[in-house]
């Protein structure tokens, strides 16, 4: 968010504040409520920002919600206040001020429209008079043509349009000199309908092609009748004068490649032919216009210039290098050189276009452009550096873009890709700008085809960079240790920076491994590098070991990598053991089945490793590592031990829940669970924060449902006040697992649970379902009645209350069925029909005011 956007939000917040006062002054019953979360600006300023709505206990209809409270308030007024007789006014000024302003604006609009209509009618009369004069002495066919023009002047009609053009094609002789002159006049007019048809007809009848081309160029300069004008220019691109050509070029660029507006579904078909034809005929003029567009400080014009380069460079690649300095400079300092940028999105869109064109330049002249970028990089701001590095990112996404455009085969450009990789590695090793490093880290980690294909030849550079990153990590931590800060923000920043450096080290190792894949010599070379790294460089070795799965595409490669992997599993280094466990997890079940048991045995031992990092890493990996039966038993025992150990560690609940889930899904047998393990696990789960693990609990419930303390657990979870809406829904699924006997014994507890949470309908609904399934009718009725009674008796809640009452009737009806109480059943049916009728009546009464669109009246 930039300063301008921030200011705009603050302005809106202040306006909302004023509107709140106006609403309150209008009626004390109405209140403004937040319908969504609180954003950063609202938090910082305390201003009413976000999704806001208006509520009132006397309002039968909900209004719209939105950011701009003035519109929301007026909409609410239209739907409710305008029809209300319970208003409690306070003082002036009030909401009516907004309503009056809205009405006055509507009236002004209406008057303006009427005036425009009168003026248009007057002009129309003038044109009719002109055509009447023209008719004198003309043939009947010519008069029929003028009739068509008259008709088209009144209303657009495809039929009439076609008739005019066909007449020009089939009977050009009808177009006498005065008529042709009149058509030229129309072509220069401002009447869209007539202008386009005039040009279309003149294409067939005008003998003065020079004049026609000039008329078309003039239309293009004004941005009118672009399609047909472009056709005329395409037919005779050499005609016209340079001044006219220059004025017409922007329209032809937008026709050739319109800059992306950011609106979905706004893509138009690119039609570059006319621009290309004009460029061939007038290269200097088109270049001049392009330069002028690129030199402006208006973002749309700059984007047009970029679009011109994108279109024309397909036929004249030299154009890109010609404008390279301009485009790179513009991209580097976009925030200074574009003056009309209002939002971050505007800037992003302009930079995205510039980035693409610089990337294309890099592809055309890799070395020259790369060194030019490097020159600009030296003097660039932090943002400028990031924008420049994204050029390399753009270039490395060609394969992905090809695939997204349905092109299965991607043609690499080895020279450009090698330059990109080298530049990225150089920046990774030397650059201090964390934004730049983050871009590089993300790019390298995504392993695009471009980098993988050149990575094989640059494996040493990749592995070397991984080593450099390791050294950078070490010095980064050393510096931070010296300058320790207690500032939370700085602490978070430090963590992010460290994370980026780690990502870069891992990314380089991973890319090197992927590049080596499939070539035995390279795989051996990678493994030899790992073996030769100084054993003190634990972090580097572990990053390289973690990347070994990327090396392996066959049993032969696995055999080459395995000795190093195995020795890492049994080494004294904590980091390496953890990395080896993570590497095993990435192999996949088929490859794991090819591993000697010795390796899996060493892995199983990691589950009992005394170091937290190691055994937690091993547990994370375990879910992806199938084991032989005897090791499976050992893993189960180790997992159970970990569960017991971590049950006492409140800050490790995530890991505990993960262990229990894994144990239940993979190891626990029915008999073991019944022997008391289920109760133990439930006990441990009760100490974990339910709001964070509701979904996990729902998935484990099937295995734990028979535990004697399961019902207590369910009630405990559902009673958690911090449960989110989704969490409450997930937790309600626990109720479906409660065994019938337990549910019967604890029916009143479940009813009380529902009564404690009348605001959570999914919970109440599930409790009622459980109780009605076991025939606990008294408790079921109590539960649903509690929900119904908690709904306030006011207008907005009226429909909700009726629906809740229907739910009560349904439960009571089933209870009456169970007891065979026919009179009660009939009474309930009667009430049911009455409520349905009331709902129907309410629908009829307010359907118009419930229209989803504002200003419905």
């Amino acid at each position: 968010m930039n300063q301008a956007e921030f200011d705009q939000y603050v302005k809106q917040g202040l306006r909302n504040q004023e509107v709140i006062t106006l609403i309150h002054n209008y009626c004390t019953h109405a209140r403004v409520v937040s319908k969504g979360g609180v954003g950063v600006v609202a938090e910082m300023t305390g201003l009413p920002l976000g999704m806001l709505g208006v509520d009132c206990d006397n309002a039968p209809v909900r209004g719209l919600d939105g950011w701009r409270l003035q519109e929301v308030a007026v909409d609410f007024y239209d739907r409710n206040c305008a029809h209300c007789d319970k208003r409690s006014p306070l003082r002036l000024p009030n909401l009516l001020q907004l309503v009056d302003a809205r009405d006055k604006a509507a009236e002004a609009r209406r008057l303006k429209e009427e005036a425009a209509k009168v003026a248009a009618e007057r002009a129309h009369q003038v044109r009719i008079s002109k055509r009447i004069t023209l008719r004198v002495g003309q043939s009947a066919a010519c008069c029929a043509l003028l009739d068509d023009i008259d008709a088209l002047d009144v209303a657009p009609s495809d039929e009439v349009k076609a008739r005019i053009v066909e007449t020009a094609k089939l009977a050009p002789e009808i177009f006498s000199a005065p008529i042709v002159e009149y058509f030229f006049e129309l072509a220069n007019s401002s009447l869209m309908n007539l202008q386009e048809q005039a040009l279309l007809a003149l294409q067939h009848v005008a003998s003065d092609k020079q004049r026609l081309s000039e008329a078309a160029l003039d239309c293009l300069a004004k941005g009118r009748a672009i399609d047909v004008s472009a056709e005329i220019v395409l037919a005779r691109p050499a005609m016209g004068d340079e001044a006219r050509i220059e004025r017409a070029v922007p329209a032809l660029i937008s026709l050739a490649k319109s800059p992306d507006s950011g609106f979905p579904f706004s893509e138009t078909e690119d039609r570059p032919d006319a621009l290309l034809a004009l460029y061939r005929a007038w290269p200097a003029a088109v270049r001049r216009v392009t330069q002028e567009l690129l030199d402006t400080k208006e973002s749309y014009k700059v984007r047009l210039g970029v679009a011109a380069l994108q279109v024309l460079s397909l036929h004249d690649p030299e154009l890109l290098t010609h404008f390279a300095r301009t485009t790179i400079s513009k991209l580097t300092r976009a925030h200074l050189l574009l003056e009309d940028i209002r939002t971050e999105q505007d800037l992003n869109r302009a930079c995205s276009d510039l980035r693409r064109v610089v990337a294309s330049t890099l592809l055309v002249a890799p070395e020259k452009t790369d060194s030019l970028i490097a020159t600009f990089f030296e003097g660039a701001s932090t943002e400028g550096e990031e924008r420049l590095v994204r050029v390399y990112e753009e270039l490395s996404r060609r394969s992905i873009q090809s695939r997204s455009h349905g092109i299965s085969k991607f043609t690499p450009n080895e020279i450009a890709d090698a330059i990109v990789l080298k530049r990225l590695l150089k920046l990774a090793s030397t650059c201090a700008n964390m934004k730049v490093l983050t871009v590089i880290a993300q790019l390298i980690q995504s392993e695009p085809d471009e980098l993988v294909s050149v990575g094989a030849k640059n494996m040493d550079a990749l592995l070397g960079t991984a080593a450099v990153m390791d050294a950078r990590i070490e010095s980064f931590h050393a510096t931070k240790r010296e300058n320790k800060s207690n500032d939370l923000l700085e602490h978070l920043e430090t963590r992010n920076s460290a994370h980026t450096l780690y990502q870069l080290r891992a990314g380089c190792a991973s890319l090197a491994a992927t590049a080596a894949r499939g070539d035995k010599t390279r795989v051996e070379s990678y493994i030899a590098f790992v073996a030769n790294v100084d054993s003190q460089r634990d972090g580097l070795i572990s990053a390289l070991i973690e990347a070994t799965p990327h090396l392996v595409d066959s049993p032969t490669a696995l055999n080459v990598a395995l000795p190093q992997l195995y020795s890492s599993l049994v080494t004294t280094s904590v980091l390496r053991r953890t990395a080896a466990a993570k590497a095993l997890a990435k192999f996949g079940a088929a490859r794991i089945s090819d591993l000697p048991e010795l390796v899996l045995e060493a892995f199983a031992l990691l589950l009992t490793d005394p170091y937290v990092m190691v055994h937690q890493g091993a547990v994370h990996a375990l879910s992806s590592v199938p084991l032989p039966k005897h090791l499976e038993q050992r893993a189960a025992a180790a997992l159970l031990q970990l569960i017991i150990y971590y049950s006492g560690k409140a800050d490790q609940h995530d890991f505990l829940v993960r262990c229990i889930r894994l144990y239940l899904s993979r190891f626990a047998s029915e008999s073991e669970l019944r022997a008391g393990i289920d109760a133990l696990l439930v006990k441990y789960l009760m100490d974990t924060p339910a709001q964070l693990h509701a979904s996990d609990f729902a998935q484990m419930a099937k295995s734990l449902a028979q535990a004697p303390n399961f019902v207590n657990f369910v009630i405990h979870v559902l009673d958690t006040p911090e449960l989110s809406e989704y969490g409450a829904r997930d937790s309600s699924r626990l109720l479906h697992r409660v065994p019938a006997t337990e549910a019967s014994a604890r029916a009143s507890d479940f009813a009380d649970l529902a009564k404690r949470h009348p605001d959570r309908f999914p919970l109440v609904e599930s409790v009622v379902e459980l109780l009605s399934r076991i025939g606990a009718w008294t408790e079921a009725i109590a539960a649903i009645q509690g929900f119904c009674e908690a709904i306030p008796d006011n207008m907005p809640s009226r429909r909700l209350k009726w629906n809740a009452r229907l739910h009560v009737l349904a439960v009571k009806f089933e209870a009456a069925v169970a007891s065979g109480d026919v009179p009660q059943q009939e009474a309930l049916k009667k009430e049911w029909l009455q409520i349905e009728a009331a709902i129907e009546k309410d629908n009829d009464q307010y359907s118009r005011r419930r229209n989803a669109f504002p200003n419905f009246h």
Partner: protein
Amino acid sequence: MLSRIFISRIQAVESLRALSAGLTVAPEELGRISSRLDEASIQFEHASTSTAYGALAGLIRLVASLTEWRKSVLDASEGADRIFRSTVERYRMWHREYGEQEAAEPFLDAAGLIPKICSLPDFEDLCKALATTPLPVGAFSDGRYRIPRNSNQQVTEPAPAELSIAFLKFQIDGEAAATIHHLAPSVLHDLEIEVRVSRWPDSATKLRLSPVSAELLNTYELSEFTFDRPDGPPPYSLVQRGRAVLKHAQGLNARPYEFKYAASFQPTNSEQPVSVVGHRTLLIEGFDVKSNPITGYPSIDEKILEVRDKLRRSGAVKSEELTALLEVLTVLGSLAGRAVQDAEFDGAWKEAEFQRVVRAELRRNPRIGSHLDEHPAAAGGITDLSFRGIAIELKSIPNGVKTLADCQTYVEQTASYAVAKEKQVAVLCVLDCSKKTVAPFPAKDGITILKSEAPAGVSVVTIIIQGNITRPARLSR
């Protein structure tokens, strides 16, 4: 949602009530109600409520047929029996679908009346029973968990048969590769392999069986087996011979070489096997007892290796414990062999004397020497000897032990010392001082692993030293 659904439930109960009172309800009306109940059943989130509604809808359809039967009976028309038989058959279908479903259980008794209906009062009883069976009031699904049905789903080709490879034969020097093989290092050995391939992937040109091992690459050489695409229809049986050689001998404490053959089709981007079944692991012991004897008694050496392998396989013993144990076993194994060969323990020995001899014997081993402790305290008792935490309990039994199992009496004591020192293994050395009237048994038969009771489950390696052996000449007298 409820307002749309529940009214059909009310109508169902009303209709059943009317029929139970002998009134008439049009079968078409019942058909409409059952359709609406069917529609309602898919709106519930919980399957059991859906099932209950579905079961009731099915029963209402049967009741609709029975109302036609009722009419036929009252009109004395010909089709009554036909309608009834059809209803009973449909009831059986209903029962097959819902009979085992817990959610439909409340309806089972009532529905069971259908085949027994003989008269109109029986029909009315059925309707009454159904009209008094309550349904759960279910929670409605918001559609989050429902997978949308794709009506335009294209018919996909049936998937090809699973690509699997079975190892039928895997031999080394003509023996099936089942347990641990002892192979002399630096000697060529034969490998023979036979596999069955379920089918051959279209793009694959070769099948490669490669050895995978955690051993360093320069310590062994094993053939890689490559097969070209065979002719004929699948499955294919492929046989090939190769060689294996271990380049280095192993130490006693080293684990056996482990090789596993993995299968892959070439090129690597071809379809790869989904499953590889059969025995494909080679466990090769490169420790050569002939050229590097442990005790000097080959059969005892083999027994010691067997004990070592067993303990390793159990996974309960740490490698450092095993190393210490093997040092002790090497000495005691030698002693057991000499005790038989030279009758070193003549006559009856007191435990203290026996301990002196064993202690001296152990100390002579340069890898044990000063690390052997005597009488260290453990678990409130006194251990006889201990080497790197491995308890060595010595017993001299005047009456001797008839079988190895008799030594179980001393296992719990020995195990207690091990548990106190957080070890999973201990040594029990028993001197059998009983007067021998027959020839002694081979010393290797006096070595075994005895387990202590759960939960400790300590492995106590037990060695019987045979003393008081009668001179062979005396046995002939």
